[in-house]
């Protein structure tokens, strides 16, 4: 494999990072919409374990936020 020049490598890494940020940001946005939808669904039909299902969507949103922060940090 040919060694890439440092500047070129830096550029590629920045593009990759931007891709990570865009994907995770969009993913987080979708997850927040889903959390809201799950909350609305839970208010209209009350079934057992609905709180755990809602809690999981918040945990997943938190996890995605953590990835976003981690991506900014690298």
């Amino acid at each position, binding site marked *: 494999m040919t060694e890439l020049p440092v500047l070129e490598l830096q550029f590629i890494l920045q593009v990759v990072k931007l891709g990570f940020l865009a994907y*995770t940001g969009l993913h987080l946005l979708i997850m927040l919409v889903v959390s809201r939808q799950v909350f609305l669904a839970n208010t209209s039909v*009350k079934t057992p374990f609905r709180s755990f299902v809602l809690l999981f969507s918040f945990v997943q949103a938190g996890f995605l936020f953590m990835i976003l922060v981690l991506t900014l940090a690298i």
Partner: protein
Amino acid sequence: MFRTLEVYPADVSFFSQNQNEKVFILVRSHIFINAGWIFRTALFAALPIITYAVLEYLGTVLPEFVPQFKQLRDLLPAGYWLVLTLIYYSSLLTYAYFNFLHWFYNIYLVTSERFLHIEYKILSGKKIAEAPLRNIQDISQHIVGFFPSLFNYGDVSIQTASERGRFHFRSVPDPSWFRDVISDLAKIADSGGGFAGEP
């Protein structure tokens, strides 16, 4: 934990429930219909680990066949690989969660007055269909296929006199029992009787 058929379910109510209306049965599709996405999730969760282990092993045993694996691994810094792994597994988790939600919020309810099909499609809205029990004209059940026969689940179709026409209860557990109970409830509702006994 997640029962798919509950008679006199505790802690179940819905937004348009009338004051004296009782929920008799809560049904979701049989839990086995989730096997496909659970298997796919497990497969895709194991895939990167297996691929990495195989390439690592081949790189050690037959270095001439996978000479660039180590260089490919070193192309990105460790932090990038960590984030990439986290993104991959979070996407997988979301995929599994969406499938679970689709099953969990696809609910059939039979009450003392009517039966309802409440379906939440998390990103595209909700669908609610209902018909009074007294409007039931004809009920049929279908158990088609190997797994439905093995695990005793199938579809129950209810023909009603309402505008909606035919209702399909998909992959209901124990469809024979379900059809029988709906039929009995329809008879009682049609005769104007009360619902003192258990279904």
